[in-house]
């Protein structure tokens, strides 16, 4: 039986498997972007009256840095059993000029990464239970 594929959090990204996108907000007055969408008014100083619009963010950006966790983090992280090290990457989107964290896609070897290289957003499994596979955005290198 195949499991339901559900987002680990609602409304943070599209579920388009081939071209997923992170969902943010844009303040058109100051051309400032926000991710996640946890603002009710623009945080750009002087633009609190701007009408925020939901936008899909650029799919690609440059690797700002990355690190591999070798210890099991505390709850509410749901760890695989046995625990597997995982990598967290920070990527700066060129157009939005915003650095966003995400896990590295499972199939990517972090030892091949280099700060500054081009990355793109993809979907991956965060954890599973008996019925569902919980999806989250992840980063992977843009295929050369």
């Amino acid at each position: 039986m195949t499991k339901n594929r559900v987002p680990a959090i609602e409304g943070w990204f599209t579920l388009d498997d081939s071209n997923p996108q992170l969902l943010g907000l844009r303040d058109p007055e100051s051309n400032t972007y926000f991710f996640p969408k946890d603002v009710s008014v623009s945080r750009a100083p002087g633009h609190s009256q701007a009408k925020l619009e939901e936008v899909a963010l650029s799919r690609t950006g440059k690797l700002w840095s990355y690190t591999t966790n070798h210890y099991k983090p505390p709850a509410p992280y749901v760890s695989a059993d046995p625990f597997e090290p995982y990598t967290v990457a920070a990527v700066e989107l060129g157009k939005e000029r915003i650095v966003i964290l995400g896990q590295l896609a499972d199939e990517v070897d972090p030892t091949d990464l280099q700060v500054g290289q081009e990355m793109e957003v993809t979907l991956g499994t965060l954890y599973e239970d008996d019925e569902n596979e919980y999806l989250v955005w992840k980063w992977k290198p843009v295929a050369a």
Partner: protein
Amino acid sequence: MSNEVAVLGVGMHPWGKWGRNFVEYGVHAIHAALEDADLDYRKVEFIAGADTMRNGYPGYVAAATFAKAMGWTGIPVASCYAACASGATAMEIARTRILAGMCDVALVVGADTTPKGFLAPSKGERQLDPDWLRFHLLGATNPTYFGLYARRRMDLFGATEEDFAHIKVKNSRHGATNPNARYKKVFTQEEVLGSPLVADPLRLFEICATSDGGAAVILSSLDFAKKHTSNPVRIAAISTVTPTFPNTVIDMPEFSTDSAAGIPAPDRGFKDSVAAAAYEEAGIGPRDLSLAEVYDLSSALELDWYENIGLCKPGEAERLLRDGDTAIGGRIPVNASGGLGCFGEAVPAQAIAQVCELVWQLRGQAGDRQVADAKVGITANQGLFGHGSSVICVR
């Protein structure tokens, strides 16, 4: 008009994993500071307390908790929380009250009892709390952020794993005879590099632990100090700045930075602005420093601070370290106390403990770790959620 206040006394309870009530550590530190100041507690006119979030309600109202523990005297109190910067914020509240002429003598205190292991978010499912979400969606522990900064230094500036280990070795030598330090072992480069990876490239012995501990300082107006003592250490500046939009360096516990697409990033980034505000207030610069106490939550982070407090330009911190400039005996010793590497972090007490070290150093009372002819010192620290903290002491 001078914005200076005097430090009449300082005191600490040794850092460790004692497992006792945090109030006990704070009271111990207060008594030590009173003794150091040669002052009766009943002369204290105000208490500023740095809160602990891990010890229930008494921790949220730290100033009142300590006022009660010392025996109610009816004085006003203020409790505050600014994560790792709480101690500096409490000092700023006390200083402001003194400078406003509302009191002559104020006590600042912070103490903590900490659980084992990673600092984890508070319990319960909270899908609107970024601190909860970063653990749930990313597994982004605090060392994850330290690992990101360290890796970026390697790729951008050529920092090596040996540099990161070197910091730990240097600070372990500094703190080895500090009676208040928790870890007094002198580490070798091999031991540090042989410890397990936590957040690549950082290893277990390069990431600061959480500790129990307590620290207190007694501040007064310069007029009061003149009558009570001679040549006290003075606080010349306290910086408690927040970031300026857009903050373009990823900070705990965030998922993202601010966007710089529309409004350009300020010339000075947040961590650079922390010490800059203190220098400006004190009317001095990095060249005037005798020593610095900075927040080495990881060994690699100490290198960032060299640049953030203006000891060198971006990308030059590794050279400063390798040349021995930041070891005791060098041009500008950093973390003569042993730093967080020797203490572990007792959140509300740590920024106060940094000032205790400066005071001992400036008085020439630092024993084996004494920095020769110390006259000016700075502390620097950054608390979660945008709390800058920096204190400049002079004598």
